[in-house]
């Protein structure tokens, strides 16, 4: 008799996100939610401000998540989550993880004040920013997470975004919160490990998850994971952790960093860029990568 082969899963099998959600094809943000919930488990409450996920979850009275959700105001994910945590503790639930789940607009821009407040108080919440690098839910407008060079509907090709992406992990590190990590939907085990690690730390945890958006990036839906992987391999979006605002660790080390051209050329939002523009982007990526490596040494 043939020996039965068993498949070993590197992530828990249980799905807390159902497939009947409303995301676009190839949405990176859905992968991010699926993996994070696998790490956090059922004892989780999610606060979702205005962002793609406010729609993806499904309309009232439906929900694609098996955990409770507070759909909250745009600029209020962190403060709402802080209130939920305090409320749960006062009614005797000290175990549940309270997760604020916001897009880049709700984090880098309109929600930054509330996030800074919660981080300074070190409220015991986990904050995830799934970053698709623009206001995608409203139809692709630039945010302060939009990278240099990108086309959006408010940065047309004749006047593409000419400022770099805001350094959100640097801002969060300045608050000296216990845990900050970047993660990518192309590296589920790394993402899972970080979410699980964060779950077991008291205080404010900040996860910045890179989540490609085919609709907004004008990329092919089947390239979502490829793009996320290339973003790591080119150091456009390196994977690292910052503990207590100071201790930097690079999780995916790069011996031979790929040129960003490989990453850029798969996306319609960068189609208008000339070689000089891409060289400018490359220089910026190199500079940031060098700085990150220096941070790891010190």
């Amino acid at each position, binding site marked *: 008799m043939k020996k039965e082969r068993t498949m070993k899963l590197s992530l828990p099998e249980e799905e807390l996100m159902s497939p009947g959600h409303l995301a676009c094809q190839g949405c990176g943000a859905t992968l991010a939610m699926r993996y994070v919930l696998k790490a956090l488990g059922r*004892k989780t409450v999610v606060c979702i401000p205005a962002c793609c996920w406010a729609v993806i979850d499904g*309309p009232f009275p439906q*929900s694609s998540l098996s955990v*409770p959700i507070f*759909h*909250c105001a745009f600029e209020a994910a962190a403060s709402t989550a802080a209130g*939920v945590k305090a409320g*749960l503790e006062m009614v005797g639930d000290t175990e*549940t993880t309270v997760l604020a789940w916001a897009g880049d607009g709700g984090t880098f821009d309109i929600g930054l004040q509330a996030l800074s407040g919660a981080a300074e108080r070190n409220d015991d919440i986990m904050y995830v920013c799934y970053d698709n690098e623009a206001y995608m839910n409203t139809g692709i407008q630039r945010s302060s997470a939009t990278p240099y060079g990108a086309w959006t509907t408010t940065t047309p090709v004749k006047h593409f975004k000419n400022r770099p992406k805001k350094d959100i992990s640097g801002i969060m590190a300045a608050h000296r919160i216990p845990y900050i990590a970047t993660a990518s939907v192309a590296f589920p085990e790394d993402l899972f490990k970080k979410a699980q690690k964060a779950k077991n730390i008291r205080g404010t945890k900040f996860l910045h998850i890179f989540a490609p958006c085919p609709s907004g990036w004008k990329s092919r839906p089947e390239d979502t994971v490829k793009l996320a992987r290339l973003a790591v391999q080119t150091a456009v979006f390196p994977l690292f952790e910052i503990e207590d605002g100071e201790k930097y660790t690079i999780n995916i080390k790069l011996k031979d960093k790929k040129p960003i051209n490989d990453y850029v050329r798969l996306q319609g939002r960068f189609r208008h860029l000339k070689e000089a523009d891409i060289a400018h982007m490359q220089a910026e990526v190199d500079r940031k990568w060098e700085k990150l490596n220096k941070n790891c040494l010190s």
Partner: protein
Amino acid sequence: MKKVIMGNHALSYGAMLSRAQVIAAYPITPQTQVVELLSEMCASKTLDAKFIKVESEHSAMAASLGASLAGARTFTATSAQGLALMHELLHWASGGRLPVVMGNINRAMAPGWSIWTDQNDSLSQRDTGWIQFYCSSNQEVLDTVIQAFKVSEKLLIPSMVILDAFALSHTYEIVEIPEQKDVDAYLPPFNPPYRLTPSDPHAFFGLTGPEHYFELRYKLQKDMEKVPALIEETGREFERIFGRTLGLVDEYMCDDAKFLFITSGTAGYTARVAVDDLRREGVKAGNFRMKVFRPFPFDKVRGIAQKAKKVAVVDRNLSYGHHGIFYQEVKSALYGRDGMPPVFGYVTGLGGRDITPGDFKEIYRLASSKNTPDEEIGWIGVKR
């Protein structure tokens, strides 16, 4: 136990005796003593609550809503600019049926910067779906906080307990502090039908299409309509336990009044002095102080107004391009009904200018000299 306390501390004691479990607040003059005392109460464990020291009023209300949906009794307090900053989330509170109780100190809106009282801050929030109580003594402030929790939690509608800047917030009065056991008997623990809990997961406040939204708002209005009766019922229960009345309105010599002032806030107390003076002069005056503005106490206003020959509504607020706001609402409540008296409207005391008994007597003289009200606002005390 009797204590001499300021109006702001009456709010703090009210929240403490109500056993608020979460407080999220941001300081603003003239509200600061409310949260200072509550911080001390939390630190000394006189009050078993979590105090979230947020970085803005917007976050104060956001955190309050989070805590309330988690099932905790939640209190906050603010004033003027802070209340305006919360505006978006005031809708969230009522639409979400989250019975947060908030103290608001009536302060005039900038610019120019003012810290003194008028009612435009809270009246600008008229249509946000909050119950609005306007108080005129420190005792009433304390008692109303306790009652507000009871009413709000029963109908799942948030409440604002409102008091005038300085005229009440910083004025010391003798206040009977109720016994905790009596308050516990009056106000049971908060136990909402739905809450954020992993053991019974729901998605709250998600995308709500034209299929459902209208009905949710219809239900909010239907429950708002139950508030007046519930305020009276819980007011009677309050009186049985504590010996003090709490109702929709405060009637002073209204039964046989031919000339009726309709007032609110501390001006509603000043009016009593004017009523006494006028009565001594042989004028059958009365004062009808509206304690609850939202929901509007239609029956009370109509019932009392129809007995008078003339009504003068005194507003410490103004809707630019219209009239005083209480005036508009009283007129609309009486419009089209037989046997209603003419209603005169006066605007006074904006930005904290004093309203004196003399001003009320001036209003009486002005209204007495005419049979019908002018189109023009009756300005009292303005330098023209």
